[in-house]
């Protein structure tokens, strides 16, 4: 492949990305970073967790994104009484015309391309864990049968802060499966005015589908082709290792407040996210700046605090920021 073709491929990648982003921005106001982060997660074959208090448009954001993609969308509202079978589906007894009865699998809402797991932390951990296999392997096992999910498949989950009533913390294994955890903050004054202007009129903007599943898969291939030099990759590794309290290279804050550090999935997420960011900035190489830019959403939910950290209410963002500050870039 020639340099010109590669340049065209990169330009096409950026065009498609911006196409989706612009389409979502028609509906969602003042959330460019969120949109970009969610799209990064989608392109990295990952899942994204959105955290914020109710009413900030988390669900609307995901719905709008699914509307901009020509993909099958499914929404699961997590409640305390939600059962795993309500997500994965179950075998039900069917009777044919001859009166013979047999078990037939009834797919659950997880069989879609885009899953909105709304308020995921309101369900019990048992139900939350029903997503584990699907999120990692892209398959669902019911009884003796394993069903493969259609690709692209990604989960966009929202959750309320843990301090709120009736919430259950997500299992560590499931948290690790999320590519990013994005925090949704209150919109600015200007954004509020725009939101009101758009949503209190007769016609609300409706997103148009601008990207197909095939396009998404092409973009994923482009991302994986971006090279990364060892010094930059070494930087990503150092960042991840700095979150491990048992290692010599651990940051002092890590040693004091962290129980478990980021897994290799964290390093993978760092590199993939950095590659996407490099492409978005018209570069064919990954830089330490790319890694630094995505380190916070990638690592914040992968750093698990110990009792002291919880007791002192040390935010994981504080720890990750300290690591970024003290780790030398190439």
């Amino acid at each position, binding site marked *: 492949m020639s340099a010109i073709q590669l340049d065209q491929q990169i330009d096409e990648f950026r065009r498609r990305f911006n196409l989706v982003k612009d389409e979502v921005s028609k509906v969602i106001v003042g959330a460019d970073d969120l949109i970009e982060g969610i799209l990064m997660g989608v392109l990295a074959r990952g899942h994204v967790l959105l955290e914020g208090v109710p009413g900030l448009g988390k669900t609307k954001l995901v719905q709008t994104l699914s509307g901009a993609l020509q993909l099958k969308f499914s929404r699961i509202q997590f409640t305390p009484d939600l059962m795993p079978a309500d997500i994965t589906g179950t075998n039900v007894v069917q009777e044919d015309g001859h009166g013979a009865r047999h078990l037939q699998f009834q797919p659950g809402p997880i069989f879609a391309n885009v899953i909105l797991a709304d308020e995921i932390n309101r369900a019990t951990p048992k139900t939350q864990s029903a997503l584990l296999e699907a999120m990692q392997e892209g398959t669902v096992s019911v009884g003796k049968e394993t069903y493969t999910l259609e690709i692209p498949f990604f989960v966009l989950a929202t959750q309320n802060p843990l301090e709120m009533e009736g919430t259950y913390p997500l299992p560590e294994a499931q948290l690790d499966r999320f590519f990013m955890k994005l925090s949704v903050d209150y919109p600015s004054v200007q954004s509020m005015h725009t939101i009101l202007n758009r949503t209190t009129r007769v016609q609300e903007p409706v997103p148009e589908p601008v990207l197909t599943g095939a396009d998404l898969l092409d973009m994923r291939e482009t991302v994986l082709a971006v090279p990364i030099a060892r010094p930059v990759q070494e930087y990503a590794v150092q960042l991840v290792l700095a979150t491990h309290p048992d290692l010599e290279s651990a940051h002092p804050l890590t040693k004091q407040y962290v129980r478990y550090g980021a897994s290799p999935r964290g390093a993978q997420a760092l590199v993939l996210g950095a590659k996407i960011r490099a492409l978005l900035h018209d570069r*064919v190489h990954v830089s330490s*700046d790319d890694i630094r830019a995505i380190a916070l959403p990638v690592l914040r939910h992968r750093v698990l605090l110990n009792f002291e950290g919880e007791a002192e209410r040390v935010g994981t963002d504080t720890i990750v920021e300290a690591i970024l500050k003290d780790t030398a870039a*190439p």
Partner: protein
Amino acid sequence: MRRNRFMDRTVAVLLAFAGVGILVRLLNLVVIFDPRFMNYFWLAWIGGLAILVVARNVATGEPRNQQMASAASALDHRAKLHDEVVSAWWFLDHEVRGPWIDLHVGRAAEKLQSLDVGRLLPLEVPPRSGLALGAIGAMILLAFVPLPFVPGLLLSTPLPTDVATFPDRDEELDEIEALLGEAREIDPANGQDLAAIQEFEQLVDQMRDPDLSLADTAAQANAVDALVDEGNLNTNSLLEGLEEMGSDLRRAEETTPVGEALSRGDLDSAAEEFAALAESLAADNAPSGELQQALEQAAENARAGLEDLAAALEQAAQALANQDAAAASESMMEAAQSVDDLSDLVESQQFQNQAAQRMDALREEMRQQENAAGQATEAGGSASESTDAESGGEGDPSRAAGAPQGGQQSGQSQGTMPPEALEPGAPQGASEGASGEPSDGDVPAGAVPSMTGNTQGLDPSGTGEIPTGLGFSPEQKTGEATSLDVQLLMESTAAAAGEAATEPEDRREEATRQERSRLDYRNVPSELTPAQQELLNQERIPREYRNVIREYFQAIRPQNGGAPTGETGETGETDD
């Protein structure tokens, strides 16, 4: 990049070495190092600095690929290239190829071509260079600027600028020897001068021997000191006696020029005036009656050493009384000759003093050098001993131990030669007051007059050539510690009850009660010269009142066993 790194490393090495240098110099404030050690230290310092700079920048330098990676990183940071050069260099260095990598490297190359590397990476002065320069400056200041308050800080103690340097030692001794030769030529007949000159010449010979130290020549120097001092005392006494004679001679018109010349110490003129007076008498010029009286009075004031002059004047007075002008003229000629001899004596003493002064300066210089070397070799606690040795001259144990100065010689020197007493114009009482203590022998070392204080006033000409410091040079004050010859008698005392009670008597020492000298001071033979005795025995009457007192006693003097006369100057004798 490489130059900046070189400068960085060099500055770091300089800073470290300057720190070491300053540390050693500061340590040198407490511990006095051997000068040889300091020399070796500075050599090692310079050599080590050069080696380390080379080693850090060459032998232990980074491999080329690391240097390139560092340069790439610096370029990325300066040009905000987002690790593009670092990344491209890594792919090139590791020969990783591919379409994407080729595109990446191509883009990086284009970027680099558009960059002004020299502007992005200029030669930078390391931030610690100011500190390093300051440290180096401080070290140089400490190392080479003399700090007199720190003994041994310098490689050698700074010498006074007016003292001859050590390499000039032989030349200086030659000049001293020349001065002694002049003194010998002027006054070859004087036995005392001859002895002093011979002793002096022996000292000069000893000083020429490089194997002999100051301590080895101390005894000879002490002997020379004593002789020169004695000569000074005699000279001083002679000058005072001549001044008194001059005062008496000014009473007559004929001898007024002679008296004035004697009073101002111009002995050559005085001799010429005596000769002129002799010729005048021979020419049958009638002398006045005052001349005879003035000559008699002058003859009465004869001091030790002025006997010949006094005798000549007395003979002249007698001849005048006998109306024998020829005899009087001959006596005047003898007086002229006597004054001329005295002039030679004083001039010879001046040359000796000059020689002594130069010898003193030379020995002082040598002492300072020996002390500097001694202090450098002694560590820590020996510093105080060095100080004592320096002040005590030749390192005599008694002086180092702070023993009081005693003995006959020291007592005489200190007691009879206070600076005030040697001033020609000073009142007599001053010298007498100071001379009352010489035999005590307990004058502390600190009470020794200074070299210049000892000799001031001995230069009648005011040229500064007369004073001699040799007599009071530090090495002279190195005699044995004095002590009373005490016999500690054992006295029987009543014993206390106890185990010792088995003996009828206990013998206890009562040193304080029995501490008596067995030698009566009146039996101590005097070793004073006549001139010294003259000084000691001088009456305590100020000179300006002597004539008044003399005239008073002459006025009340009973004539023919009767009542005193009411006039003065009528008798030829005085009884003062």
